[in-house]
């Protein structure tokens, strides 16, 4: 075997062709056990397009799911398909995937530019192409002014963005982000969220995991909830909430005059209880969250209430999980 130095050879590279009908991501009754510990069990799921949030507490199996998808782990049962291909056997589909691992260790001795351009070359780019691409994606995540500094001197948010940049360098169709917002300051969070939303708008399939519902909520409504390695719910976040109407939801409103607001909302049929934690706070109990949220703005505008904040304090992951698993409130 002599290298084709002149690059004239007619060797036809067998290109990997994705199955056209296959979903981007497919899990068919997938289980993964470590010894006697079951990380995930019997998950079936198919996703194509859009931004999907994988929600779950720590240890729910989010990272395991991603690692199975990226061929890092071998499923104990069932089958995993990435663009219709088994990722444990064949790394070819990664040409269309960008993966941001949860692991915080990085090559601290490199600059972000070197990091991104070096790994870009593993997609088969030339040195020059890789450099151009690296500049483009680092600009996209907002690191172009610091890209020639060592990663070891970066803040957590910058490291996270460098990881995202390295995953975008091949212009992937599927982007997998494992806890991309963890440990980031509010500014970095906002930047990263914007980047992810932008990717969604560009028509990419994005999978991201988090254990904080409010983070996911700001990015997407399409969610998958994992709990103790099982698929608990899948679909629109608010639709899931709406199905849980037999249990009252709580809405907390901060305003100038809580009593005046209370008077106005009591007229609504959907409201069945009120509480005054302080003079400027009002807690409202309702069975129909969606309907209430539809009517609330009109009440506020018509009666000229000065509202500072509207919170759904129990609309967090813990409480959703409690509802879904039938836990007692």
């Amino acid at each position, binding site marked *: 075997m002599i290298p084709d130095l002149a690059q004239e050879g007619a060797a036809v590279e067998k290109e990997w062709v994705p199955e056209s009908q296959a979903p981007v991501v497919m899990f068919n009754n997938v289980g993964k056990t470590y010894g006697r510990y079951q990380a995930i069990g019997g998950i079936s799921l198919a996703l194509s397009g859009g931004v999907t949030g994988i929600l779950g507490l720590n240890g729910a199996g989010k990272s395991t799911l991603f690692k199975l998808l990226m061929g890092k782990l071998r499923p104990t049962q069932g089958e995993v398909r990435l663009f219709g291909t088994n990722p444990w056997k064949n790394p070819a589909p990664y040409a269309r995937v960008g993966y941001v691992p949860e692991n915080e260790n990085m090559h601290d*001795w490199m600059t972000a530019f070197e990091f991104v351009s070096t790994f870009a*070359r593993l997609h*088969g780019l030339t040195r020059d192409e890789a450099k151009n691409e690296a500049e483009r994606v680092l600009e996209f995540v907002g690191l172009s002014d610091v890209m020639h500094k060592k990663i070891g001197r970066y803040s957590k948010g910058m490291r996270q963005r460098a990881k995202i940049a390295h995953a975008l360098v091949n212009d992937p169709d599927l982007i997998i982000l494992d806890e991309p917002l963890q440990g980031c300051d509010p500014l970095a969070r906002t930047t990263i969220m914007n980047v992810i939303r932008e990717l969604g708008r560009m028509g990419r399939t994005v999978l991201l995991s988090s254990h904080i519902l409010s983070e996911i909520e700001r990015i997407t409504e399409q969610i998958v909830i994992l709990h103790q390695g099982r698929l608990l719910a899948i679909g629109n976040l608010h639709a899931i909430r709406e199905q849980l109407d037999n249990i009252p939801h709580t809405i907390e409103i901060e305003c100038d005059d809580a009593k005046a607001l209370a008077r106005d909302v009591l007229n609504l049929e959907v409201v069945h209880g009120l509480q005054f934690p302080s003079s400027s706070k009002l807690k409202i109990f309702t069975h129909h969250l969606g309907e209430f949220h539809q009517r609330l703005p009109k009440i506020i505008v018509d009666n000229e209430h000065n509202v500072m904040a509207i919170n759904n304090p129990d609309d967090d992951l813990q409480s959703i999980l409690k509802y879904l698993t039938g836990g007692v409130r």
Partner: protein
Amino acid sequence: MSKKERGETIWTSLDRKATAIAEFTMRQYRTRLSTWVVLGVGFLAISVVLLFYIDAMNTEIEAIDNDGDSVDWDGDGYVNGQEFKYGTDPLDIDSHPGLLDPSIEPEPASMYINEDDYDWDYSDASLISTGYDDDGDCRESQLLPSAQDGNSDGTPCNIILIYNAATDTYLIYADPNVDEDPDEDRYGKEAQHRAFILGVGKLGFVFLLSIFIPLFLATGLIRDEMTSGTMQYMTAKPIARGEIFLYRMLGYLAIVWPYLLVVCSILAIVSGFMGPGDQFFRFADLGVWFSILIAALLATLVYGMLFASLGVLWKYGIILALPIAAWELGMALLSMSVPDSSFLRMSIVGWSMSIIDSAAYLVWPDMDMFTAAGAWAGGSGEASIFFGTGNALPGYRALEWAQSDIGLGMGPYATTIVSMVVLLCQAAFFWFIGQLIFKSKEIV
């Protein structure tokens, strides 16, 4: 643009991925302190040996009177050698050349030390008649002609060498007082020089550097990144794990091979200028140095593949590597004493060393005769009633230890080629095993 239009072939993309990972690995090594510590310690160890060598080359080896003719047994002022020459009795104080007519002045004892050096043509291994009686104590002695031809070959005052194929040694039959007092410094320097090259090549390069550098640098080649989790980035790219293993190895070799080249060149240059002989530089020795370099390059490749595979196999792969290193040490010593042992075929070091032995055989074809001469030491090396169990010339023992025959039972060229092919096959085998293990490993 499609890949075809950009002139893509399988080689261009291979080149991109291979060089990207190799360069990455190389830079990663360069940023680690441990790399420099390991390479620095290796260089220091070799430098210490080099210093001993330089010291030895600059120290005159003390001349020894191998035949004992510089002493004056009877104390009459005339040393035995002078008394033999003039036929007087060395044991009788009243018999010495001063009483002859005309009277002879006593000569200094130093004239009878190293006065009859070897006149052998080592380069002709088939030569059986050699030696010349420089000081005339055979040719001009009062001995009967029959006594002057003690080995009965018809030529008086010579030495005949007979090669004994069974023991691979030379039998030496010398006429009396021929080449009986060789120059220790001349022989010893040459022997020490060769012993240094072979010893440092075999134990210094092929054993010490070629095992310990891979042990510390290659065992973590894949493992370190699996442990720290940074392997996640590389394995998320469209590249097979077997390729990652191979290209990481290229990065390791890009550090280790130039290092070996530099260290080996330093030693070759220093010993070429410092070595004994009249020539300006010992160019012929470069052949042996080149074989040492080739052997070390191949050994670091094979050990690198092996230890990297052990690292992938188990987090504490270095513990698995240690018994292998111990086995290889045993094999290294075995190859220097029993080069044809079949155990050596189950080692890496044995094959590497036979490359050096082959080159030494080609560069120094006189080796067997040269060592035979050192062992014989003008006759005093043989067990005798006067000198006990033999006094070999200085440097002989070191050379005898460092030098060994080609153990494969083939010619030097065939041995070199076979050994290199075997080492390359070993490397390929360990790579294959290593990447199989790597493929089956889950990266958590």
